[in-house]
């Protein structure tokens, strides 16, 4: 399991997900899955899937079946927030301040691990389990 950026969003994404011109282009949090892995997990493109991390976090996201990732690797963008473990938190935002697009944060499932010198967090390698939602 690894994570990275999307061109439309930046950082935690609150700012860019609140910009309709950008938000329209990425409307759903997703997880990129290799077709082989998707077939093994019985998941089709566009379906909802649970991604479960080794430390107890789990998120419900859309399966994006693609060859961008190789077998045994899933990729998620880290710009989404506003959903937590399958729950939509939109009504918790102050009125009129909720970003247009909400989604699960991939860091709900990313795990412990820090660089020995700088305490950099580990966001590029972890393990997960996929399950059709």
């Amino acid at each position, binding site marked *: 399991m690894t994570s990275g950026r999307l*061109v*439309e969003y930046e950082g935690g994404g609150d700012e860019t997900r609140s910009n*309709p*011109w*950008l938000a*329209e*282009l990425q409307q759903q949090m997703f997880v990129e899955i290799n077709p082989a892995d998707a077939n093994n997990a019985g998941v089709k493109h566009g379906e909802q899937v649970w991604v479960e991390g080794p430390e107890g976090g789990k998120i419900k996201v859309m399966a994006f079946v*693609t*060859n*961008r*990732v190789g077998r045994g690797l899933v990729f998620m963008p880290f710009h989404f927030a506003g959903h937590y473990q399958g729950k939509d938190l939109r009504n918790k935002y102050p009125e009129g301040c909720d970003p247009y697009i909400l989604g699960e944060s991939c860091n709900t499932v990313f795990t412990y691990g820090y660089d020995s010198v700088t305490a950099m967090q580990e966001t590029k390698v972890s393990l997960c389990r996929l399950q059709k939602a």
Partner: protein
Amino acid sequence: MARMKFLCDDDRCIECNACITACKNEHEVPWGVNRRRVVTINDGQSGETSISVACMHCSDAPCAQVCPVDCFYFTDDGVVLHDKDLCIGCGYCFYACPFGAPQFPQDGAFGNRGKMDKCTFCAGGPEEDHSEAEFEKYGRNRLAEGKLPLCAEMCSTKALLAGDGDVISNLFSQRVTQRQLSQEEPDSGTAQVKLWGWKTAYKD
């Protein structure tokens, strides 16, 4: 008279979608209407190619041919524009257009689609240049300000070119030549650009 054209250099397009948001920014196009889009073919596979596309302002524009109310017209620069006051929102232009350029603000029941909206090459519409009505219906008229479409002007890698057809095709062919020249021979191990010049001629 200059013939305005778009050209997308697929060797450079990286699907950054700047053209899309630049367009939204300039014309305040509502959510759901996208005058421009980027399509990536073979996504995630070898041969992945991204291309930005909008109304291409075709010479023999199919939209214009099929429009039941004849609302399209051509400017002297070869830009294909349409008159939203005439448009009846039948959707035929969308069926005819090879590039999927025409957009409709709503896709309702009983063919209730609203007035068609599409890329104007930043050239507005039939209303008076820079008038409020023109902006509301078609967005800004950059051409009349002496500027080119913002999507191309803001393209992150200069992949999307817009302007006088001769100029941009020249520019593009220069690029192609440059790329061919700089393709190194296999195993030569040199990255030198093999452009012909005095040095090459006399082997200095």
